[in-house]
């Protein structure tokens, strides 16, 4: 077996490059060394926040928290609210962090019943009490932000086509809006679940009939919000052609047309309120640090930063909203609501039935 000179040269070149690559850019060569969270004694120097993938806050706020408390804040974010809840439930005997943020009112009861959280009652900012849980959850979870899942419409499309815009859930099943509606699925996305709950709140036990009508009227289901909004909605990132979509009350603030208006609006009579909570995990290594994180999430600075970082409304009524939000993102007066305990009890049956109704 002799290698030709050329092959040998190639081999040498490739091997050298490979070795160099290996040496220069493996992770172990990177700067990902983990300092231990405890320095010598027993005072924790780190607090770990477990959250979902949409969590993000400006760096200066995190730095300020670290400077004020002397703790290093490690954020572990992955999955959506459902995945987060199940992670916390599965690991409740040996939690992977100290504090959790991002469980919403559709999942709160499951986590509270499983004993995931330890009691902590922070001082709530002004106006936040309206969002607090009732019952068992009240002493363990603090509300941090609220968003409403509402049906959004493309105003420009309706103006151009000369079709009157819909306003209520009942309108959406009318023949005038045939093939115009796109909905993220209830089983695979949290806004989809919220919209299902809105219909349950409106129609009670007759909700399957409403969904049958919706599907017969050509409503389209996608697996997540991004497919619905970005691909199928006329004002999304792609070239969609459905002018009605399930999204958030804050979405119109993102479709500003540059001429002082926005091209979309949320139908305020179709909204379901989603509240996100934070709580100290039972069995946390650093419970004091965890409590400080909850307080920090409720502080004015963080509350004011929520709209721009996470597209949600703060629970505090004391902070000012950004300019675009103040003009285009209107919160509904009387959103639909379903009791978290009832959601927890019926979730499986509802989702199963919903799957059956929509896949007929």
């Amino acid at each position, binding site marked *: *077996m002799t*290698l030709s000179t050329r092959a040998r040269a190639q*081999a040498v070149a490739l091997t050298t490059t490979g070795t160099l*690559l*290996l040496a220069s*850019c*493996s*992770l172990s*060569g990177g700067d990902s060394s*983990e300092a231990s969270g405890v320095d010598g004694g027993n005072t924790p120097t780190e607090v770990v926040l477990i959250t979902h*993938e*949409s*969590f*993000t806050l*400006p760096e200066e706020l995190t730095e300020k928290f670290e400077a004020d408390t002397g703790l290093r804040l490690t*954020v*572990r*974010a*992955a*999955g959506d609210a*459902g*995945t987060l809840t*199940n*992670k916390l*439930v*599965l*690991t409740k005997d*040996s939690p*992977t962090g100290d504090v959790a943020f991002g469980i919403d009112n559709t999942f709160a009861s*499951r986590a509270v019943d499983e004993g995931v959280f330890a009691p902590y009652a922070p001082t709530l900012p002004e106006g936040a009490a309206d969002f607090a849980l009732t019952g068992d959850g009240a002493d363990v979870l603090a509300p941090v932000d609220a968003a409403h899942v509402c049906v959004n419409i493309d105003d420009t499309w309706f103006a151009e086509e000369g079709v009157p815009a819909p306003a209520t859930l009942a309108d959406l099943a009318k023949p005038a809006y045939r093939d115009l509606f796109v909905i993220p*699925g209830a*089983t*695979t996305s949290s806004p989809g679940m919220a919209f299902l709950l809105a219909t349950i709140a409106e129609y009670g036990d007759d909700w399957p009939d409403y969904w049958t009508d919706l599907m017969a009227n050509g409503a*389209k*289901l*996608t*697996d*997540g*919000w*991004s*497919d619905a909004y970005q*691909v*199928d909605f006329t004002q*999304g*990132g*792609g*070239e*969609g*052609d*459905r002018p009605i979509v399930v*999204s958030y009350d804050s*979405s119109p603030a993102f479709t500003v047309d540059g001429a002082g208006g926005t091209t979309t609006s949320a139908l305020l009579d179709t909204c379901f309120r989603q509240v996100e909570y934070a709580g100290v995990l039972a069995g946390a290594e650093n419970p004091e640090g965890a409590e400080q994180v909850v307080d920090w999430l409720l502080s004015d600075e963080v509350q004011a930063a929520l709209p*721009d*970082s996470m*597209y949600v409304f703060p629970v505090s009524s004391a902070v000012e909203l950004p300019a675009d939000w103040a003009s285009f993102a209107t919160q509904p007066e009387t959103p639909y609501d379903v009791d978290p305990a009832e959601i927890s009890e019926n979730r499986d049956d509802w*989702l*199963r039935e919903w*799957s*059956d109704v929509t*896949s007929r």
Partner: protein
Amino acid sequence: MRRAAGLLALAVGPVLVLGVFFVLPVSGMLARGLWPDGSFDPGAVAEVLTRPRVHRVLWFTAWSAAAATALSVGLGLPAAYALHRLEFPLRRVLRAALLVPFVLPTVVVGVAFKQLLGESGPLGSLGLDGTPVAIVLGLSFFNVSVVIRVVGTAWESLDQRPAEAAAALGASPVQVFRTVTLPALRPAIVSAASVVFLFCAAGFGVVLTLGGLRYSTVETEIYLLTTNLLDLQAAAALSILQLVVVSVLLVVAGRLRSVPDPGVSRVLARPRRPRLVDVPVLAATGLLLLFVGVPVLTLVAGSLQVDDSWSLGNYRALSSTGDQQALLVPVTEALAFSLRTAVDATWMSLLMGVLVATVVTRRSRSRAERRVRSGLDGFFMLPLGVSAVTVGFGFLITLDRPPLDLRDSPLLVPIAQALVALPLVIRTLAPVLHGIDDRQRQAAASLGAGPLRTVLTVDLPVVWKPLLAAAGFAFAVSLGEFGATSFLARDDQPTVPVVIFRLIGHPGAMNYGMALAASVVLAATTALVMLLVERLRVPSVGAF
């Protein structure tokens, strides 16, 4: 005896790694389902399998995977012939290009197909979006390259003389193909089909993105049951079923894997210039290229548009964090992190792959020994067919106590990716090691060479190219891995597929454009790696 002990010692490392990072987490999740409240309850699991919804899911999984397999084989056969037996310009480039879909992240392919088939896309009028047809097309898009590699490699080394004899005796080309060539290729075709069926049945991202919600497969159902409903019993029932089916398929594929007799040196048929006879085959290959190329081109076109005009704006934006801070780190940083992770995953999977391939390919002295070897071989293929979400949650509940407190280790991501790439590495190296005549090693040993010297002088000259090829393949797989990575990646250190997923999940036209641009960059990087691999001319790459 000493020899067996030595070989076992080689296998211990990889077996331990797979045990800790795969068997343990999966068993942990299954145990949660089977022992819900501390008491063993198999009845509840059996009950799950009688639900009508589960029957629907099983039926859909079976037929969609079968249809996608049939389509992949149908499209792959003519292309295998054209790309491996005919000589025409750009043949190698095409071969490399057709390997790319296999390692593209499902997120990217989902976006590409959506752009194409969506109601407003160029093919929107066909109304395929959210139909089983779209799912079957998507699955075939991924797997057609497997058929091309496996069958093409077999076709290359097929003995020409029987076919020539048949032709001389007056058989028409069709008759020759039906009576001589096809029977000779049958093991390769069946082996490829069984692997493709396995991949299709385990398809996750494609089904979720393209099927909307009306259709779920076993894999998407496990995901739903675990993440949304926390119905671990039902998830365990389906996982066990999945494991059983995967094991059966692996046994079938293993039985049929045509192992060349090491005593025969592989003769490659010289590719010939196309003739008039080959026009249908070339046309079919062109069709396949269209099928693979159009979604990718749609993606590229979309990434080059900002507000309906051509621009590189989306690519320039890759160094930013997107509209409204959609990302924590810019895409460029994520790409650097992806490459670093891929390097780690590559050396891990190579190290394990070499050890395992060495162990499973040495000549067995007894039937029992052969059984053990093929059992090992199959054991390392298992990660191909178990849902990432089961492994991901399993990590959380089993690796939580010292000495295995690894839940937050930065090495988890590369390890998970290495396990995904491992079967491909083994399949690339095993045939080559199999082809080395043991007598050469014996000769070296009798001339006084130690075990290391033997490896350096006998094995290495034959293996270095396949090693590099396997490294490239593992690298590409790691770059595109999404399922396990999305579960384990840390927020401040995302890989590119995770970032793409985040970008399409945030409102703002800019973010969508950036997602397309990042997908193109990822696909281009992958294609470049595969092109380098193809230059090494290792037949077993991508073959099973």
